[in-house]
């Protein structure tokens, strides 16, 4: 079987949108489900629209794609409004307020933006401004989830690089407030301060910034490859793919990228990002790049990583699960915590989580029922 045949339908279509024209209704049934579960329906719809195929697709398919298009464009519009409100709320802070991930792609007009769906805004601020920022937000209608117990609060505050998620009481928006790149207890020594070196102003949003291209890419890579749960793994990989293609066209980008990775201490996540974007999405980058990132993982470690990420970075739909999926998920979960915490802390934390999971009824997303 060729690599092309082994690829999930969703990946094949997103890499070569023209393929979609020849799909049967049964294929579309599956494709839409894979796209929805991977949070990539908006991207798929944008690609169909841009290729001019949307109106010629089978009749039952069109409303689904039009709905996804409408929803993702609406989200982008609401995001602008929300960031503008946040900017006003936090105007008194010295700043800078730096948008990360999805919000930065959309407001900065970057390649992953079209059709990007997201559930929260990620905002980075200097650590010393965190208490004031938190208070200001609480005063202006933001709040933490009710379900957080004291343990969760402590977990976030002592060991994490972000506060527990905040949400706005009236507007329902979610906000992740970051103060560092990765957890301060992380195994790999990192220089989070470096992220504040050269923020770029976002036009139309005074006081709001995005990271420069190298840092934006490194931050996204660090997140994906330190994350223990990857509900949006494939979408995040497509983000990296789009960023690499976009920034790769900028003069002198590649040497700056590797230099930056060494400076901040993110050579390993970049190495992994390059490996899996190329392996799974044919992303172009100069072949000499890998060698500049220091020694690769050992053979055994690499085989394990491959086995895990090949599974975790497939569409989050049952039709795409490979044997060993659950084991891979569990391994990545432990790895992420291993990277994140010293051993004693890790053991305590995992025990606690396992106990909660065994005894509580399963967590489910809350939805309003009509």
């Amino acid at each position, binding site marked *: 079987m060729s690599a092309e045949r082994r690829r999930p339908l969703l990946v094949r279509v997103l890499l070569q949108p023209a393929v979609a024209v020849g799909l049967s*209704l049964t294929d579309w049934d599956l494709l839409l489900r894979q796209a929805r579960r991977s949070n990539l329906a908006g991207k798929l719809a944008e690609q169909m629209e841009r290729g001019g195929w949307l109106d010629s697709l089978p009749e039952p398919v069109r409303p689904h794609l039009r709905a996804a298009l409408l929803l993702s464009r609406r989200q982008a519009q609401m995001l602008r409004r929300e960031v503008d409100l946040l900017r006003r709320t936090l105007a008194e802070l010295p700043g800078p307020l730096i948008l990360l991930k999805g919000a930065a792609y959309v407001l900065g007009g970057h390649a992953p933006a079209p059709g990007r769906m997201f559930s929260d805004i990620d905002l980075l601020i200097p650590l010393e401004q965190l208490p004031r920022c938190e208070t200001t937000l609480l005063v202006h209608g933001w709040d933490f989830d009710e379900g957080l117990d004291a343990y969760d609060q402590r977990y976030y505050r002592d060991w994490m690089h972000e506060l527990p998620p905040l949400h706005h009481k009236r507007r329902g928006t979610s906000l992740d407030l970051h103060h560092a790149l990765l957890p301060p207890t992380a195994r790999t020594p990192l220089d989070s301060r470096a992220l504040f070196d050269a923020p770029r102003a976002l036009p139309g949003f005074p006081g709001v910034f995005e990271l420069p291209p190298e840092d934006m890419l490194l931050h996204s890579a660090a997140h994906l490859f330190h994350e223990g749960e990857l509900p949006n793994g494939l979408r995040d990989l497509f983000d990296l793919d789009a960023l690499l293609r976009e920034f790769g066209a900028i003069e002198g980008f590649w040497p700056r990228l590797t230099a930056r990775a060494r400076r901040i201490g993110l050579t390993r996540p970049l190495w992994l990002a390059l490996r899996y974007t190329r392996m799974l999405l044919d992303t172009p980058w100069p072949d000499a790049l890998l060698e500049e990132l220091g020694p690769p993982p050992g053979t055994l470690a690499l085989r394990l990583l491959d086995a895990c990420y090949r599974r975790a970075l497939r569409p989050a739909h049952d039709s795409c699960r490979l044997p060993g999926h659950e084991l891979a998920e569990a391994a990545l979960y432990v790895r992420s915590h291993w990277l994140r915490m010293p051993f004693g802390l890790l053991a305590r934390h995992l025990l606690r989580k396992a106990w909660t999971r065994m005894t509580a009824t*399963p967590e489910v997303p809350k939805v309003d029922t*009509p």
Partner: protein
Amino acid sequence: MRLQDIDTPRLRARMRDGGVTLRLSPFTVRVRSDIPHLADDIATMYRDFELVDEREFVDFHVAVLRSPHWLSRLQGRAEFWFDGQRSFTPLPAAQALAMLEWGINWCIAAHAHQYLLIHAAVLERGGRALLMPAPPGSGKSTLCAALAHRGWRLLSDELGLLDMTTGLVHGMARPINLKNASIPLIRAFAPEAVFSASMPNTSKGTVALVRAPQASIQARLTPARPAWVVLPAWRAESPAALMPIERAQAFMGLAEQSFNYDVHGQAGFQALGRLVGSCGCYRFEYSRLDEALTHFDRLAQAAPASAPDPLPEHAR
């Protein structure tokens, strides 16, 4: 083939294995379940609906399955799944039918943005549609069930699908969802109505479903043009009264009860503006069904409103 053409054991088996695909026009829904009594409930509520060939395109793949979690399983709970993803809190398996109905509504509300989706009872008479948007507890479903058994055609008791291009409302003639005291009330009011088993202790109290009347099911593919927007409110001991309201108030009632008004932005604003512009708009208070029905009969007998009042410029 219609659902009633398969016998119960075969339906149960098919639901357990691959699932059955129901044509709930304009949508196609595949339902899988390992709960035998859910198959029976579906057979009762949807017996006149068509089954779709296995190879056809399906809009929503849903399942109601016994909970795999040991604690939930011990408590006999069931879960709603939308295409491999669990949603909602697990509920007692006895409430499987209610959970399926809520789940299908949620699938539509979260995805079918080709329509402006309004949480409203929709009924039709003489080609004209009555929309009753209302929050829970307003007596909307009770009124809807009563009207549906007295000469009005049921399009929907919860979900009006407004086509923003044609201005027509589509319904699916799915079962009516009754709660608590409404259940014995409608049983007495319309003895011919077909009820599901009552499901006690749901988040909304006791719930029972009523199958849409035969004529409504037969005509379910025909949409209707909105003629009245009525905001109902049940008040103990109050005499029935139908009071005209400002179009703006009806507009707000519809917008508040819409699942995706915000998604549609300006297009949604204009569509609702056109809708209330061509409708008679009322508030309706009632406590007794007989009395209520006379008001609606009178409404239906009155000549259609002539050319609608012009809307203020900004609302067009």
